[in-house]
C-alpha cells in the first residue's frame, strides 16, 4: 500500500522538477511524507531515476533532521530545546512528555505510536516552551496542557 503511495508522490515531484539531481531533496521529502520514512525501495528508485549514487542519497538522508530510513511513530513529537524554550523550562516539559508518551528522547515506541525528538528552534519562541506533533503546533506548554494533549492522542 505504502509503496504505491510514495511512488505516486515521488513521480509527481519528478514531473515537476525533471530527472535532475536538484529534484533529490524534494523527492526524499515526498517519500518521507508518504511513508513516514524513506523506504529502501525509494532509494533504489531514485538512484535509477535521478542518476544519483546510492551513497550520496544516504549521505543526504543522514544529513537532514527530518529525513530517516527508520520507521517512525504515527505521531512524531518535536520538542524544542533551543535557548528561548530552554529558558522557559523545556527540560521540565521533556520529562512530562517522556512520561506521557512512554518514550525517551530519540526513540520510537514499540507499537509505532510515538516518536520523540528533541529538536533545535522551531520558530515558536513567542510561545515557549513549544513543540510540534506532526504538523500541529503546541505552544505555551504546561504540565496540565501536555497531559491533556496526550490523553487525546492515546485514545
Amino acid at each position, binding site marked *: 500500500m505504502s509503496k504505491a503511495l510514495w511512488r505516486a508522490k515521488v513521480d509527481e515531484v519528478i514531473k515537476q522538477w525533471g530527472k535532475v539531481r536538484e529534484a533529490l*531533496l524534494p523527492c526524499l521529502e515526498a517519500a518521507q511524507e508518504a511513508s513516514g520514512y524513506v523506504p529502501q525501495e525509494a532509494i533504489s528508485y531514485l538512484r535509477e531515476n535521478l542518476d544519483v549514487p546510492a551513497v550520496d542519497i544516504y549521505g543526504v538522508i543522514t544529513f*537532514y533532521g*527530518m529525513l530517516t530510513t527508520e520507521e517512525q511513530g504515527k505521531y512524531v513529537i518535536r520538542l524544542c530545546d533551543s535557548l528561548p524554550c530552554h*529558558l522557559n523550562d523545556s527540560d521540565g516539559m521533556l520529562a512530562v512528555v517522556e512520561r506521557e508518551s512512554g518514550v525517551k528522547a530519540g526513540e520510537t515506541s514499540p507499537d509505532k505510536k510515538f516518536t520523540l525528538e528533541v529538536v533545535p528552534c522551531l520558530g515558536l519562541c*513567542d510561545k*515557549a516552551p513549544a513543540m510540534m506533533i506532526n504538523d500541529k503546533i503546541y505552544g505555551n506548554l504546561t504540565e496540565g496542557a501536555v497531559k491533556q494533549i496526550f490523553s487525546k492522542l492515546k485514545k
Partner: protein
Amino acid sequence: MEKLLTRNVGKADSADIEVYLAGGGYQALKKALGMKSGDVIEEVKKSRLVGRGGAVFPTGLKWELTRKISTEQRVSPWMPREEPPSGWRAASKFIVCNADEGEPGTFKDRILLLNDPHMLLEALAIAGYAIGTTQGFIYIRGEYYREIEALEKALKQAKAKGYLGNNILGSGFSFDLMLYRGAGSYVCGEETALIESMEGNRGCPDCRPPFPAQRGFMGRPTVINNVETLCNIPSIMVNGGEWYSRIGSPDSPGPKLFCLSGHVNKPGVYELPMNITLGELIQNYGGGVKGEFKAALPGGVSSSLLTDLKVKLDYKSVAKAGSMLGSGAVIVLNKDTSIIDVAKNTIDFFTGESCAKCSVCREGTRRAGEMLARFANSGGRAKDIDLLLELGEVMYDTACCGLGQASMNVTTSAIKLFRGEFEQRLAK
C-alpha cells in the same frame, strides 16, 4: 512609526490576494516594470537597505553584482540540460529567497510568510526583473507547514491573476517561482549551504569567494535575499529609495522586525525603527523582564551577551558594544539564569547543527561542550576558562562559515561578563 512590513498583520484574510490588492498590492511591481532594470537597482541602492538575515550586506549592491555578470562572464560554464526540467526554467541567473529561518530566537519571517505572502512574491518578481532572470525560488524550512501552505496558495493566486508567469502585466517580462522545502538543517540558512542543499547535496557550506552572487545555483549567478529584506522592496519602489533612507536611524535606515523572547512578559515580533534602545524594547514593547534583568542576546545565540540596556539597537551601535544585531532576535535572560547553563545550551545546539566539514568546528564545539558540562556539574577546571576563550578565537579565525565562527560567542562573552560564575563552579 507607520508600519511597512507588518501593516497587514492581523487583518482578516491578510494572506488573500484580494485583500493585498485592495491595500495597493502589486502596484510596486507595475511601477518597476515600467522602469529600466538598472533604475530599479538605483532606487534600492538609494534606500541603503541592507540584508536583514544577519549579514548586513547592501541589497542594491548585491543585485547590481549579479545583474552585471553577463552570460559570457560567468565564473563557471554550465552544461545545458539534455532534458529540460518541466516545472521551472533553467535560467542563466537566479533569485532565491532565503526563508530557512532557524536562528534560535528568530520567528519574524514566519509572521510575514503567514500573514503577507504576496508582499514577498511581489518583491521577488521585482528582484527578478532587476537582476534579469526569469526564475526564482523560495527555500523555506521544512517545519514551516502552515507557511508553506500559505505560500502555495499565494503562488496559485498570483499566477492566476497574471502577476507571475508569462508576460507579466503585458510588459514582456516573464517570471516563475518555485518552492524548495528544507528538511531540518540550521546550517542550510547559510547561503552556500543553501545552494548545496538545492543541488541535492548535504548542506555543507563552501568557502567564499566566489559568492553566490557570482556563482550560485547550478553554477550560475544567484542573488540570495532574506524574507524580511525582500519585503521592504515594494515600499521602496512605491515611495522611493530617498524616502526609505530617512526612516529611523541614519546609520541603519528602514524598519526592523525585532523578535523578543526569553524572560519577557510579552514575547513577540515588533516592527520598529533602529533607533530604540535595548531597554526601551524590553520595557515599552516586551512588557518588562520576568524577574530582574541580567543580560540579553541581541541577535540570537550567534551573538554575544549584552548587559547594557542603553545600547541602541542599530547595526553599528550593537557592534560597538561588542555584539551583533544579526537577525534581530533579542533573547532576554533574568537574574535566576545560570550563565553556564545558557552557554552549554548554545554550544549543544551548534554541536548538533555543525555540518562537520571543518574539523575545528566539528571538534571545537564538542570539546567546548565537554568543558562546559564539567562547569555545569561543579567540576570545572581552572585552565578551561582561558582555554575556552582561546578556542573561541581559533574557531572565529579558522572556521569556514558563520556557524563555526559564531558558535563560541555566547560562551566567550559569558566568561568575559560573568567570570565569577565560572570560578564558583571549579572542582573542589
